[in-house]
């Protein structure tokens, strides 16, 4: 083969392999979704949403687990969201280029990738030991700690998208920075910030590891934040590894439910973000 033909051959080979790699990545996403749909859809019925988690062998649903997941995710985002937004505001507006901000950004990035089970251990030491028992509020705090770095990052990014001219205009009117931030910058970045919160919700609603030894689980209905509470991820964990067919079926249904929720949230968030980045300010 001539040298030129050899180079062309290598080129085609490498490009074909990179296409193959992409196909592999897409294949696994497809395989996982297909498995969830195949195994989860069959068990979907009204009772999944209306009945409590059953004892082995009898029929039931996931109502208490769904309720618990929603409650803990909401409380988690209610705690973590505002803290993350304020911290993001500090990084984007007040402390833009100070040395402290650089350190905080770095630490926030580390927290963003920190193993969630470590957060679980932290909250266990911080709250569960002191309260003396597992509780939904401990689970919610663990989720909040995971949501904070996500919200900090997205808030800062979104505030930075607001044109400097708008801030200058407000400042020129004599407004204090807090007035500029709350009346001009926040409204301008509103949909971006909301998107960040959605992404944070998507991130924490599937977290299992930090709930294992904070919220634990509860076979029964409980709306008491000071007591262990059922939640979808831990129920999936427990039921999937059980030998009982009806528990395994519920685990698959729960898995389908949680994955669909998260994928819808993520796709919605992405659509908003890309229209923001392309379209402009709002």
């Amino acid at each position, binding site marked *: 083969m001539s040298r030129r033909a050899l180079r062309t051959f*290598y*080129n085609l080979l*490498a*490009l074909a*392999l990179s296409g*193959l*790699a*992409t196909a*592999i*990545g*897409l294949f*696994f*996403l497809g395989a*996982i979704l297909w*498995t969830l749909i195949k195994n989860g859809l069959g068990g979907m019925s009204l009772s999944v949403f209306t009945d409590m988690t059953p004892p082995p062998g009898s029929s039931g649903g996931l109502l208490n687990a769904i309720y618990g997941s929603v409650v803990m995710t909401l409380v988690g985002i209610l705690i973590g969201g505002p803290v993350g937004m*304020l*911290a993001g*505001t500090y*990084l984007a*507006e007040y*402390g833009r280029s100070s040395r*402290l*901000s650089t350190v*905080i950004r*770095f630490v926030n*990035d580390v927290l963003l*990738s*920190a*193993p*969630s*089970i*470590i957060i679980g*251990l932290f909250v266990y*030491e*911080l709250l569960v030991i002191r309260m003396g028992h597992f509780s939904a509020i401990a689970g919610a705090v663990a989720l909040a700690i995971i949501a*904070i770095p996500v919200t*900090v990052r997205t808030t800062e*990014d979104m505030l930075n998208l607001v044109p400097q001219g708008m801030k200058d205009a407000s400042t020129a009117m004599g407004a*204090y*920075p*807090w*007035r500029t931030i709350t009346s001009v910058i926040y409204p301008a970045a509103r949909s971006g910030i909301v998107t960040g919160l959605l992404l944070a919700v*998507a991130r924490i*609603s*599937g977290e*299992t*590891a930090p709930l*294992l*030894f904070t919220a634990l689980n509860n076979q029964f209905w409980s709306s008491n934040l000071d007591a262990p509470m059922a939640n979808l*991820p831990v129920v999936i964990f427990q039921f999937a*590894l059980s030998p009982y067919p009806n528990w395994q079926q519920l*685990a*698959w249904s729960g*898995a389908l439910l949680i*994955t669909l929720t*998260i*994928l819808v949230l*993520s796709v919605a968030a*992405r659509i908003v973000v*890309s229209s923001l980045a392309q379209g402009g300010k709002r």
Partner: protein
Amino acid sequence: MNSVPAIAPAQAAGQRLRETLFRGATFVAALLVLLLLGGVAISLAAGSWPAFAHFKFAFLSREIWNPVTDEYGALAPVFGTLVTSLLALLLAIPVSLGIAIFLTELAPAWLKRPVGTAIELLAAVPSIIFGIWGLFVLAPVLQRHVQPWLIDVLGPLPLVGRLFQGPPFGIGVLTASFVLAIMVIPFISAVMRDVFETVPDVLKESGYGLGATTWEVIWQVVVPYSRTGMIGGIMLGMGRALGETMAVTFVIGNAHRIGSSLLAPGTTISASIANEFTEAVGDLYTSSLVALGALLFLITFTVIAAARFMLLRLDRRALSSV
């Protein structure tokens, strides 16, 4: 003489007060981020103190893990954590590189967005889903089709063969690494793609101008230019793999032992904690598990910090997907 009425002093003071309050609130929230990391470090250190005080450095060097005699050593889980993560990277790096090349240099514009988004969605799938998929779908496939082949073909080889001994369990170190690889591919490829996009067009055009093929431009211009960022992305993926819990817990088999075979069950730090923490009886047992957590924190913190440091140069916005 008429003058413009000034803001009433009381009103101005109110504005100033609100400014102080709001500024203070944002500052406190920002400090809280620092405190969180500090709090995690302190609480892990405090929780693991009894174990380290009791076992001294032997905790790090012993393989034994026996709740009955209350003797614990971290060697097996630390070994398992490192082996599964490294093996996962070995599998994930070529695929991630391929995806990044496809997305930046190869795919037509209309294909970039959907394919890129689909790969990113793989990162959004919760880890417990990877766990049950790995246990009920991947493990049986590996057990029936892949592992017997590895045992027959690679098993008899010298040196390498030791990695592929024993019966095909399905679950084990290899399966865990495989699942981890799938999980970190989206992270690594996202960073690599973002890094590749920072390569100035002029550099690539110069390569093409000299008559280089696409592959030669990628391998001799794009890759060398982005080396630091690529390594940062790989280490970021490694940070994910090291701390990954639920997916591994499902498929690794949870055996506190160090085996030379990749097909045998093993354990990792996070899997041990997830499996045993709520059932741990006694202070020493609990403390030993927290000590494992502290080790994991140290390892991942080092890796992630190094990764983020390497990625500092990158435009932060380019990385917002990670």
